């Protein structure tokens, strides 16, 4: 979330699209109700299903699965055509005035530079026009190559007629939503968007979100109280684990990890230390060397010095992507020997169960660390029709290690609003269970001792890893938290020579990090959470510290970065530093510094006339309407799901190359198992129930009692067509597999007119499986395709094709 849970109460319009907060995030959804009750805010829900969020909405519009960009592209066209944009904001705070390379173009659904064989783009034309080292701009926004004009041209094709035909949303309903959104283009009205996996789990997931980001920039809603782009995330610490960067392409704090092209430390550092694209901008990522060198000091201490290039060679260099889809592809090809799955149930959670099962069967050893008995840990075991495998043929050695759960550990979780909160151990784990960190420490110290004794392949980074914990075999969460937050290794002094932080003391925040080895910090964005003042994540003062009671509890926990609660908050004030809406002041210029109700997302003494723009993490200083960073194009474009119920992409009916995301990676063997609309005529989507959390709560008696059995949801029309009644046992099949379930026939789904045909949906709750206290079922991912978003590699769980029949 750019904003946070309580801040939702400040919105004038809440749009829920690609999510269902009332059921998936009920206690956060209360802030939507609060906005409605106390501000008179309106709630709009756009969803294929009349969800419980929709049930309390002021307005609901149905949409076909996988058509969100068409809908939102239509909103952009509406805003531009009807001049419902926040002009001052768009002019100053976005890249609308930037001039683009005249060779950039878009034709028949493809941007310039497409390489069909590689399924990727050469981005040489997706560039700014440069002059004296800076991007050229046209503040009048009239140049035909400026971003504003290119955007207008790009989205002009998204007419209400075409949008309605692609999305299935009746035109009058689409226009009503546009009108409600457009009302927030005035300076003192804000819209918040709440989305979740309904946007991310698509082959165009990142572009779904991008399209909304463009809308929020056009409306001037970024940085505002009650605004922002707000991802309602999964687990209680999914945000924190993302921030610690437990994924291949980044090191803690989103520091891009070394790849083969970064042969030397200099090459690596220089490639990641960008220059400002406009004069006077903060270009905050220019601090990369301070963040990276401090991380390496935390990990390698005296072995990480200027002389050793901060132990750069200790880090592995990637030769290829290693996201979850690629990892399981590699495993499926027999390229992996060993694997640890910790608190994760990939057999259920990753697309195409059959492929995941086959991949796990090719491992030599698998280690499952979990508090519960998961499907993944028993992938090798025959559960009849629910997991039909032959254990005698699976040669994987499987270890299962019992982990403690949240109640049995100290430590921090980071919520969706980036607030890091300490929790305390309140119970002992069952049996011989151990905490995740004790298990990891156990594995590490044993391995290290073996290398010490026996030697082996490149042992140095293992032998020299900083491991000065009081109890090396079970490091204390507080000690690790302090390591992440960071400390001074030498006395840090101000210009006058006064010691600000003495050697050995905790840092106040990332502003104190240095690039010469004088600081150690495990994750720069978390710096300051444990300062000289102590453990700030354990603070428990809920007082609303803001001037206008906008719900800023700055003394509750610690939000990253720098305890800032609303990102880009400089954009909540006009170019002169006056809040767009003084009744909801987030930040304002006080004459000599920035102040207000939040930690400034701006150099505190940057005078408005210095024109330091609010989006400090970009080289441009402004929000990107044109974003060449994206894999499939600098502007979003509607592409069909890889399994589409249509014969074509109605936006590009004559170019089959542009039917589905041209830049999505598709593996050999997976393209062949995409289903076609003749055999699998219905648009399927997976979803979640209010009573369950993923594949986890089915192990809880209470939850298993209230929602005990797998079902699928279909419309009355589809039920009639297939002779299915509510409660009937049905078989739902995709080309990859099938599930049996009870049918639930509802009015929440309806047939939709799309591109001249009627589309019916099948809704599939994901929660059931062959382990747990609920009735055994086939895992829902038996059905889903092995293809993912081209940027994030999040699998397309939300739009695919099935058939349904009475079992």
């Amino acid at each position, binding site marked *: 979330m750019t904003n946070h849970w309580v801040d939702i109460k400040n919105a004038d319009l809440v749009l829920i699209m690609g999510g269902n907060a009332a059921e998936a995030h009920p206690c956060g959804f209360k802030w939507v109700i609060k906005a409605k009750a106390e501000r008179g805010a309106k709630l709009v829900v756009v969803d294929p299903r009349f969800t419980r969020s929709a049930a309390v909405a002021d307005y609901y519009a149905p949409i076909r699965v996988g058509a969100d960009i068409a809908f939102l592209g239509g909103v952009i066209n509406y805003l531009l055509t009807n001049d419902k944009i926040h002009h001052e904001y768009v002019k100053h705070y976005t890249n609308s005035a930037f001039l683009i390379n005249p060779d950039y173009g878009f034709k028949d659904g493809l941007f310039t530079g497409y390489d069909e064989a590689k399924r990727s783009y050469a981005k040489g034309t997706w560039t700014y026009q440069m002059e004296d080292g800076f991007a050229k701009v046209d503040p009048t926004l009239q140049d035909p190559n400026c971003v504003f004009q290119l955007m207008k041209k790009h989205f002009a094709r998204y007419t209400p007629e075409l949008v309605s035909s692609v999305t299935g949303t009746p035109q009058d309903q689409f226009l009503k939503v546009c009108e409600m959104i457009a009302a927030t283009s005035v300076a003192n009205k804000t819209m918040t968007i709440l989305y979740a996996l309904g946007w991310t789990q698509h082959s165009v997931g990142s572009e779904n979100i991008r399209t909304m980001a463009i809308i929020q920039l056009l409306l001037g809603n970024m940085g505002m109280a009650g605004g922002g782009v707000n991802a309602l995330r999964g687990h209680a610490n999914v945000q924190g684990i993302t921030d610690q960067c437990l994924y291949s392409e980044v090191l803690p704090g989103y520091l891009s990890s070394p790849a083969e092209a970064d042969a030397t430390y200099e090459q690596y550092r220089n490639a990641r230390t960008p220059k400002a694209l406009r004069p006077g901008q903060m270009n905050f990522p220019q601090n990369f060397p301070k963040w990276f060198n401090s991380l390496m000091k935390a990990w390698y201490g005296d072995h990480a010095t200027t002389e050793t290039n901060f132990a750069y060679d200790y880090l592995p260099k990637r030769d290829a992507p290693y996201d979850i889809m690629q990892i399981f592809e590699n495993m499926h090809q027999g390229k992996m020997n060993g694997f640890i799955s910790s608190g994760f149930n990939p057999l259920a959670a990753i697309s195409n169960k059959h492929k995941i099962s086959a991949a796990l069967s090719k491992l030599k050893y698998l280690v499952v660390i979990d508090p519960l008995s998961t499907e993944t840990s028993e992938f090798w075991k025959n559960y009849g029709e629910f997991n039909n495998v032959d254990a005698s043929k699976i040669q994987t050695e499987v270890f*299962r290690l019992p982990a403690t759960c949240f109640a049995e550990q100290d430590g921090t979780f980071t919520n969706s609003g980036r607030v890091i909160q300490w929790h305390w151990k*309140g119970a002992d784990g069952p049996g011989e269970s151990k905490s995740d960190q004790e298990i990891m420490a156990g594995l590490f110290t044993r391995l290290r001792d073996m290398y010490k004794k026996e030697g082996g392949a490149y042992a140095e980074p293992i032998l020299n890893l900083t491991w000065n914990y009081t109890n090396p075999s079970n490091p204390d969460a507080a000690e690790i938290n302090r390591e992440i937050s960071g400390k001074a290794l030498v006395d840090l002094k101000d210009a006058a020579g006064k010691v600000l932080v003495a050697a050995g003391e905790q840092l106040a925040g990332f502003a104190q990090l240095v690039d010469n080895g004088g600081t150690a910090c495990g994750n720069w964005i978390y710096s300051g959470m444990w300062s000289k003042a102590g453990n700030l994540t354990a603070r428990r003062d809920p007082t609303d510290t803001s001037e206008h009671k906008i719900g800023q509890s700055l003394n509750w926990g610690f939000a990253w970065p720098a305890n800032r609660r609303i990102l880009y908050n400089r954009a909540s004030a006009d170019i002169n530093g006056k809040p767009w809406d003084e009744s909801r002041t987030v930040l304002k210029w006080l004459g000599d510094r920035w102040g207000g109700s939040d930690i400034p997302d701006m150099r505190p003494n940057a005078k408005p006339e210095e024109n330091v723009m609010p989006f400090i993490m970009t080289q441009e200083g402004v929000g990107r309407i044109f974003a060449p960073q994206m894999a499939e194009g600098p502007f979003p474009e509607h592409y069909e799901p890889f399994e589409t119920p249509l014969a074509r992409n109605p936006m590009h009916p004559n170019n089959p190359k542009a039917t589905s995301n041209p830049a999505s990676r598709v593996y050999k063997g997976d393209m062949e198992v995409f289903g076609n609309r003749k055999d699998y005529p219905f648009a399927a989507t997976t979803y979640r129930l209010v009573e369950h959390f993923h594949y986890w709560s089915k192990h809880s008696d209470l939850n298993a009692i209230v929602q005990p059995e797998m079902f699928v949801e279909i419309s009355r029309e589809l039920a009639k067509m297939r002779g299915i009644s509510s409660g009937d046992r049905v078989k739902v099949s995709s080309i990859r597999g099938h599930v049996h379930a009870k049918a639930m026939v509802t009015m929440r789904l309806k047939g939709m007119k799309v591109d001249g045909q009627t589309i019916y949906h099948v809704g599939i709750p994901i929660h059931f499986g062959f382990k747990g206290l609920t009735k055994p079922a086939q895992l829902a991912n038996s059905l889903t395709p092995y293809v993912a978003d081209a940027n994030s590699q*999040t699998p397309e769980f939300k739009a695919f094709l099935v058939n349904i029949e009475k079992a």
Partner: protein
Amino acid sequence: MSQVKLTRRQFFQVTGAGLGASSMTVMGLAHAADPVFAKPNKLEKTTETRSTCPYCSVSCGVLMYSRKDASGKLKVMHVEGDPDNPVNKGTLCPKGAGILDMIESPNRLQFPEVREPGTNEWKRISWDEALTRITKRMKADRDQNFVAKNAAGVTVNRWNTFGMLVSSASNNEAGYLSAKVLRSMGVVALDTQARI
């Protein structure tokens, strides 16, 4: 102190700071005249601990009440929403309201186990055996498959044949420690639920 009447909110404020080590009997409130405490309360002799619901990312504050069982293990026996938490303000949803049953699930794993290749059952093993066997496997794999330099002679120092998925239900501290350990070994195939 035992004569003081407190509202529920005040009660929590008094028992406040840090680890909720205070119990109601320590406070002397078990038999106070306040009707809330008039009858024997199941939370008597319990320890109150502040925690966070592990399910969705609203990350609701919860209060856990625990006491030692016959075997001397501290067990949670009641969970409710934390009224002081500014986000959930004491509420819990149908998922979170069931977390006691998740903590106490009959499917909680109790001890390390191994399923030997081709067999059809779990075998209980000790932690020492489990960790030793796993790390021997890992070391043999790493020593055999470690790539120090690529074809172009660039130092790459990676281990491609082993990988790990890390839970989004782990603490930041455990997650960070995993990142640190895995990178030190040269692991590049690591990922997390956040991807999904």
